[in-house]
């Protein structure tokens, strides 16, 4: 009896599920996979641009004349409204879980991005593994229309070039949403977001002919950092500043560092293999003093001036020279940031909070005004490990 009852109940249950289920079902050919998302400000709301993959083109084995991606744009008073507004333009439901890149238009970034961040984390379709960037000096919408060579999907191109450059090139930095939100929420810390901008003509970039050229005249670059205060963009760091910022934050993994030779013509380039930074704070007379130690280890990669690398002394001199150069650069950057942006992107306030919580409580409210005045010393130490596969540079006779 018991058996039969259970058998029956489960048959009925299966019947129930099979007859009525499938609420959340989306067949693969019913969804439009979005890889890039652009958010812009308009007069009365937001402009929402999605870059959608055309799977048949991406996976196609034959060359066709259609593009691998399509962008759709819609406007709405809120982001969700704009997203739903897409349904009358896009033939399928836009699926956001595979977004690789979210780009804010500069105008929106300057106005503040916190409202959009709410949407980006509240909606369950968004994952957390996409990169965030700001379109430098342009609308996110325009940026997303640029077609890129090699990588058929432009958002992927941005994603991957950022991924590689963050590993091998100091100025760029990957920012993910969870990091961004924590930074905005927590006291004594301001965020930076990497900037994306185009080179070449935008109109040309959105045409398939752009990728048919060997040189691809229009392309996308990812090497600059936008400084935020709270959730508002207030300015851009140049490449050197971005590099220093990453050194100070300990974000650098592997990069190249160019130095002028001391007393001689030419240059030496250091391949940085390891870099770390250590920030400490001491309080003297109720004023915080910050001390940042950046230690850099690397190999000599490229020597373009005549020096004797085989001498231990030379290496020591080089190390000293490099350390000085870097220290100057870093200190300049910190003071520039303090003066120009007045935004604590280095997280000095957070450092006090974490290490000296009691003191932090006393200065917490005035930190914003206090930050530009605090004393920061950055000290860089460079260590050279190897000199590459050859010892001394070749002495080629140069024809005058």
């Amino acid at each position, binding site marked *: 009896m018991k058996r039969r009852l259970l058998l029956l109940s489960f048959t009925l249950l*299966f019947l129930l599920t099979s007859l009525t*289920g499938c609420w959340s079902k989306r067949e693969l050919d019913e*969804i439009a996979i979005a890889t890039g998302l652009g958010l812009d400000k308009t007069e009365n709301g937001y402009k929402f641009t999605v870059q959608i993959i055309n799977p048949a083109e991406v996976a196609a084995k034959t060359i066709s004349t259609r593009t691998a991606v399509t962008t759709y744009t819609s406007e709405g008073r809120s982001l969700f409204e704009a997203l739903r507004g897409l349904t009358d333009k896009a033939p399928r439901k836009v699926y956001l*879980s*595979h977004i690789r890149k979210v780009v804010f238009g500069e105008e929106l970034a300057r106005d503040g991005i916190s409202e959009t961040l709410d949407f980006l984390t509240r909606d369950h*379709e968004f994952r957390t593994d996409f990169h965030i960037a700001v379109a430098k000096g342009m609308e996110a919408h325009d940026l997303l229309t640029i077609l890129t060579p090699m990588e058929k999907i432009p958002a992927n191109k941005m994603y991957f070039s950022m991924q590689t450059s963050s590993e091998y090139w100091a100025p760029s930095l990957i920012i993910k949403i969870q990091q961004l939100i924590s930074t905005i929420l927590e006291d004594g810390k301001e965020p930076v977001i990497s900037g994306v901008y185009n080179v070449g003509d935008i109109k040309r970039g959105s045409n398939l002919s752009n990728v048919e050229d060997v040189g691809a005249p229009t392309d996308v670059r990812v090497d600059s950092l936008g400084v935020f205060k709270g959730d508002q963009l207030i300015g851009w760091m140049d490449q050197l500043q971005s590099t220093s910022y990453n050194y100070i934050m300990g974000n650098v993994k592997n990069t190249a560092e160019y130095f002028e030779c001391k007393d001689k013509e030419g240059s030496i380039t250091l391949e940085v293999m390891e870099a770390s930074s250590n920030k400490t704070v001491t309080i003297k007379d109720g004023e915080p003093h910050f001390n940042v130690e950046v230690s850099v280890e690397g190999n000599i990669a490229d020597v373009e001036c005549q020096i004797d690398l085989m001498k231990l002394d030379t290496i020591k001199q080089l190390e000293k020279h490099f350390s000085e150069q870097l220290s100057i650069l870093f200190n300049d950057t910190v003071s520039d940031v303090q003066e120009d942006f007045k935004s604590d992107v280095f997280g000095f306030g957070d450092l006090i909070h974490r290490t000296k919580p009691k003191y932090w409580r006393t200065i917490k409210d005035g930190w914003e005004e206090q930050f530009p005045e605090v004393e920061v010393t950055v000290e860089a130490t460079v260590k050279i490990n190897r000199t590459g596969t050859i010892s001394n540079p070749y002495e080629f006779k140069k024809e005058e």
Partner: protein
Amino acid sequence: MKKLFRLFTKKENSEQTEHQPTPIDTDLPQNLTYIKNSLGESTDIVIRKFKIGEKRTVKIAVVYTDGLVNESTVHESLLETLMSDVRQTQLSKQALNKGMYYTVRDHVLTAGELDELETLDDVLLHVLSGDTVLFLEGETKALCVSTRGWQDRGVEEPSTQAVVRGPKDGFTETLRTNTALLRRKIKDPNLWITTQAIGTKTKTDVAVVYMNGIANEKIVKEVHKRLNQINIDSLLDSGYVEELIQDETYTPFPTVYNSERPDSIAAGLLEGRVAIIVDGSPFVLLVPALFMQFFQSPEDYYQRSDFATLVRLIRFIAFFLALLTPSAYIALTTYHQEMIPTSLLINLSSQREGVPFPALVEALIMEVTFEILREAGVRLPKAVGSAISIVGALVLGQAAVEAGLVSSAMIIVVSLTAISSFVSPSFNFAISIRMLRFLFMILAATFGLFGILLGLIVLALHLASLRSFGVPYLSPLAPYITSDQKDTILRFPRWGLLTRQRLINQKNIDRENMHKPKPTSRSPKKGDSS
């Protein structure tokens, strides 16, 4: 179950009332007429009447079934002795005084097995089993000589459960051959065999085989009890017995193990299990059967232990693949696209462009097609079978993709499932996986991974609720028994397998107690100390 038993007991009562055995009459012709009438004058029944004795005064009749008896035995040790040898021999008077019946019984018949029968029903049964029955005029008893001997298949290599390494003999349809095969493997007085006939019409011999002292007595008793409760007209294969004695009727999982391999059954007996051999079936049953047993092949014990463990792991993986691949594919592609890596998702979705059916229907079409092909492959004559199924699969698969009916990823999914489902060393276990697969597909199509997970929980609950002859089906995993893990998923080296499973036999745990032979040690001191 209870209802089932009730059904049997009812039948038994009605059977008893209508059946009354007919005694053997002193009148020989009357007996013979009765036999002829009972059997409808069947042409394969041979009745030979003649007279014996010095003066040829005693009428005698020999009855046997043509084809079931060993002709030469009947001729040489029965007819010849009776008709010619008896006359030539001088029997002592004392012997003759007792009457011809006793003379024949004690002095004449040279056959090994001899029985006395008192009712005509017994006579019929023995005649139909291949024995030869002698009637003497004026006697109420008949002599039954065992002359069984018929054409049988002979011991061949088993067609299922093939192994690369290991014995290649398989059970046959003849009960005696099968018991002999077991005896040849286990020459121990404790190998006990009891036989009973089941089936009111077929009178099939069913033998219960177990190792006395090793097998759990409770289980042996339970087997006998359940066998005695069977009351059915026919028993054509061990499958009948399996279905009638299993603990749980409504389960897709087999709770009785069957094998064609004497080595596998012998190993089971030595572990303390009970074997049931049914005459006429080369498949011998083994109880209690546990879930883990269906992942174990006899070959595991003939190969090196590390390899055997690896193979068992592969069988587990294949089990889950066979059960879940289509449903996981459906769930991922229709509900959880966020879990598929982007590039793979793009590929999959480009394949699905233009496929008219939802993923579930697509999967069902292909799975059902595969099942049809498989069934056809089994039923078709061997010569065409494999060719047709291969061509069918290739052509159907290829054409279906090209026609845009299914996506090519689905073909991969279905083939992976199909191949995985044949990895299980036990055929009937694979069937249960195949059935459950469809349920999981429906669950996946309605609730995605949540549905699959709930299905798995229900499956686990169901498996945990099963018992095979009192032993929890999932043991030794649940309830977990540490000492039995040595031969469950892992297969320890033989030196680690010196105990028997806990739940199957409670008393006689140790298999053997000896030390591992070490190679002759080079330093004699060390050797001495060990």
